[in-house]
């Protein structure tokens, strides 16, 4: 089967995955209403926090409040993305290893990593993603930056790189459940890491700044993409972000292949 038809088949499968997850969400009407209410409350909370920031005219680690808003916007976007795809799918991966449900995934003629990463779509992170995008636009305009097409494209690319890095780290942690079966809630580790990306890396003390730019890739999740959008990013950090994103995907795939060799499948 050609690669085009494989891609088409994967795309059609993902469309059905998502339509079935939305249908499953809508099966419980009361739960749906509660989720809508919870999403609205979370968004109101985020906007209130932001309004506190707007009241001040300080600098944050050399960033104007408006420029820092772009960082916060990208953080909000990534947080929404993790609620939409990462948390439901990769949290489920751990459960599937425990219950043996992973067997059914491995029996399908589809890339198991793609299946496990995209099987469920939770719509509740989508409003947060929209809010994140809005913050990026507002912050960019109010900071006085006049981004040209190249900066916007580079910024978009770096946001994608940030998403890729976050996804790969999350997937790697979830995949280790093949060996350890029960691992400490990976979701919380990654959420804390992501939370550190709410503010520009330069706002942190020097020691943490080094950690966030080298050992933990916090800088590449939000700060570097924001710099790219504002036209402030250095060529070196852009390249480093892209290389890191590429390496993290390759690494996550390699680890998954290795994990499957050690999969023992939950007993019948």
């Amino acid at each position, binding site marked *: 089967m050609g690669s085009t*038809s*494989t891609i088409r*088949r994967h795309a059609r*499968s993902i469309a059905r995955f998502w339509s079935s997850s939305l*249908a499953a969400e809508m*099966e*419980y009407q009361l739960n749906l209403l509660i989720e809508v209410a919870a999403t609205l409350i979370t968004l109101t909370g985020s906007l209130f926090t932001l309004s506190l920031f707007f009241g001040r005219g300080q600098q944050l680690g050399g960033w104007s409040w408006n420029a820092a808003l772009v960082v916060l916007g990208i953080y909000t976007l990534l947080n929404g993305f993790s609620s939409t795809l990462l948390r439901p799918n990769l949290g489920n991966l751990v459960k599937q290893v425990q219950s043996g449900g992973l067997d059914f995934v491995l029996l*399908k003629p589809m890339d198991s990593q793609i299946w496990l990463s995209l099987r469920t779509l939770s719509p509740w992170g989508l409003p947060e993603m929209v809010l994140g995008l809005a913050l990026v636009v507002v912050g960019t305009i109010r900071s006085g930056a006049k981004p040209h097409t190249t900066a916007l494209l580079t910024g978009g690319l770096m946001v994608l790189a940030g998403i890729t890095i976050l996804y790969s780290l999350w997937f790697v942690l979830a995949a280790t459940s093949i060996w350890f079966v029960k691992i400490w809630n990976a979701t919380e580790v990654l959420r804390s890491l992501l939370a550190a990306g709410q503010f520009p890396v330069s706002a942190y003390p020097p020691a943490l700044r080094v950690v966030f730019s080298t050992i933990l890739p916090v800088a590449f999740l939000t700060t570097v993409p924001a710099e790219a959008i504002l036209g402030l990013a250095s060529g070196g950090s852009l390249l480093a972000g892209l290389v890191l994103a590429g390496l993290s995907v390759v690494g996550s795939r390699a680890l998954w292949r290795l994990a499957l060799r050690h999969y023992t499948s939950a007993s*019948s």
Partner: protein
Amino acid sequence: MAIVHVQGLCRSFRVSEKDPGLAGTLRHFLRRRVRTVEAVRDLHFTIEPGEMVGFLGPNGAGKTTTLKMLSGLLHPSGGRLEVAGHVPARREAEFLRRITLVMGQKQQLIWDLPPLDSLRVNAAVYGLDDREAARRISELAEMLELGEELHRPVRKLSLGQRMKAELMAALLHRPEVFFLDEPTLGLDVNAQAAMRRFLADYNRRHGATVLLTSHYMTDITALCPRVLLIHAGSLFHDGSLEQLTQRLAPRREVRLELADTLPDSAFSGYGEIESCSGRDVRLLVDRDRLTTVVGRLLADLPVLDLEVRDPPIEDIIGRLFRQGSIEQP
């Protein structure tokens, strides 16, 4: 040419062991005691296309482990394995399209949605267009006697209906080789019979090869002219169920209805007393002495009725499983 080829297959697992109680828990936490368990060792067999083969063995004999290796879920620790011309552990898409594994204790259907939604997902995954998928769904639904149940959320279906819908999801891509692990587990007698009819019908229509494990011997006797019996990870028998019976039960059961009650000692010269309650007596008699013993019984005792039969296969295999060991004849 064989469609399933198993040669010297082995699989071992490392399992940790723990003593009960707090002290045991602490010891287990600080220093794990790990043991290697050989779930499957040096297994050899082949299956021809279209065969229906029963796969028997006590719990823990290695049946499920073997099925999981055959379907590519587990990597063997040793030996060679080929199914439909593929090495299963590579899990190539072409291989996965040609096989299916049905696990009676696990389900792939989406719990909150009707089975049709899960079938739509599977159709896309296997690259079936909508028209072809609809055709296959209606064929399977007719064979399995499912109708409006396909529109009801899975959580609202009975166990039997759910298992039928699971089979539909597992067979939508029309695989050539089925691995069925306890497909009738927990089903009532009617649902079991319906499942058996379906499997026999499907095998006739599509010539599928079936390897089936079941604890219900009726499934095996109704469907499988050939059985593989494994014990402690190794193959003990490969042949018909009759051959297995003869091998495991070299004695036949003689049931007597007597005119009077007699003491146990009255039967000592004829065979082993299986049961003796009032005027009904059951004896186990060696096959080669059967005609002589029956003649003597009729001549010596006040027999009203006499029946000779093989002990039920469940009893034979059950006894074997309980003993936990097999004496090679």
